[in-house]
């Protein structure tokens, strides 16, 4: 029975978000065509809209300071390469891929210098706990870690994650719940039934 409820819930969610996704696609296509013509205002709107997504994807792999830098680099690369984008509606997934490539390139070309939290000796401090949770999230498979970072750190809803990454709502929902279960295990928290 729980499986049936889950399936029904997914179907309802898909119907609900369909118009939203269509309008987002339309907006993205407009932005992409404007940016292709060199419209800096459009690029600024594009940056505001997608920066949390790019930052979240980068943060799932990189230290916080490096994630900020990579985010800016990805947008510069996006501005230069957006003319080569065949499907303007797929700009979100394209950005995700671009970010993953930059992260991979970052690991190839530089040495990672992860800064330790200032209060590393105080195991009960807020920053230490935050670093511990982030490390636990990063240890999860990519699909889970990226989705959890976008949800728990960047504050996006499941629907927003699905729309911007191009994933189906069902996939995002599964990634969120399974990822959360794995995170609880990694943190030593008993999984809620």
């Amino acid at each position, binding site marked *: 029975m729980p499986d049936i409820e889950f399936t029904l*819930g997914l179907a309802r*969610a898909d119907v609900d978000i369909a118009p939203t996704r269509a309008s987002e696609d339309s907006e993205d296509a407009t932005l992409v065509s404007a940016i292709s013509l*060199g419209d*800096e205002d459009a*690029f*600024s709107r594009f*940056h*505001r809209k997608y*920066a*949390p997504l790019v*930052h*979240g994807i980068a*943060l799932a792999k990189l230290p*916080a300071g490096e994630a*900020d830098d990579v*985010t*800016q680099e990805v*947008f*510069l690369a996006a*501005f230069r390469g957006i003319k080569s984008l065949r499907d303007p509606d797929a700009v979100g997934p394209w950005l995700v891929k671009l970010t993953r490539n930059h992260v991979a390139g970052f690991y190839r070309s530089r040495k990672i210098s992860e800064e330790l939290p200032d209060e590393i000796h105080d195991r009960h401090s*807020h*920053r230490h*706990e*935050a670093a511990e*949770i*982030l490390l636990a999230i990063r240890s999860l498979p990519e699909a889970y870690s990226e989705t959890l970072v976008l*949800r*728990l*750190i*960047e*504050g996006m*809803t*499941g*629907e927003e994650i699905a729309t911007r990454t191009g994933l189906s709502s069902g996939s995002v*929902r599964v990634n*969120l*719940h399974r990822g*959360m279960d794995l995170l609880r295990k990694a943190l030593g*928290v008993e999984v*809620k039934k």
Partner: protein
Amino acid sequence: MKTDYLWDKQGSDSEIERIETILSEYRYVPVPTPNVAPQKVVSPWRWLLPATAFAALLLTVLWIGSAPKSPVAVSKEVLAELVPAPAVAAVSETPAGTAVETPASARPAKTRLMLIPIRAKVSSSRKRPIKSATVALTDEEKYAYEQVVRALYITGTQLRSVHSAIAGIEDHTTTDKNR
């Protein structure tokens, strides 16, 4: 209706809310959009055209200034005004390149000695092209010419170095010298 805070933030989940609060320090902080304004591309070849034009102009000026004078075509009427009649006859029969001196007895008291550059028949009004390109330069002109050639050499070497650096080609000139 059962809410799913993890999916749509509806309802509440104290555990997830606590994690969100702890992790909020990592959240993206809006920063200014990267500057993508088209910037003026400074080409390493930007000096080539002005330098070449300047050098060409300078060389042209030097060449013109030091070029041998073209044969002067003097008509008989003009010569008749300048030189007394006997001298005109002598000039017309003189072979090219020789100087004609008017006999002292034949010229008036105030007539001065004239050296007429004659390379062809004086009566001929047609200018001949200059065959020889040999240029006799003064010391100043030689110095200026050397400076221009040196400037062109240096500019060319630097441009080659810049070009090599851009193309990622090793500068064999310096390597060979170091060996």
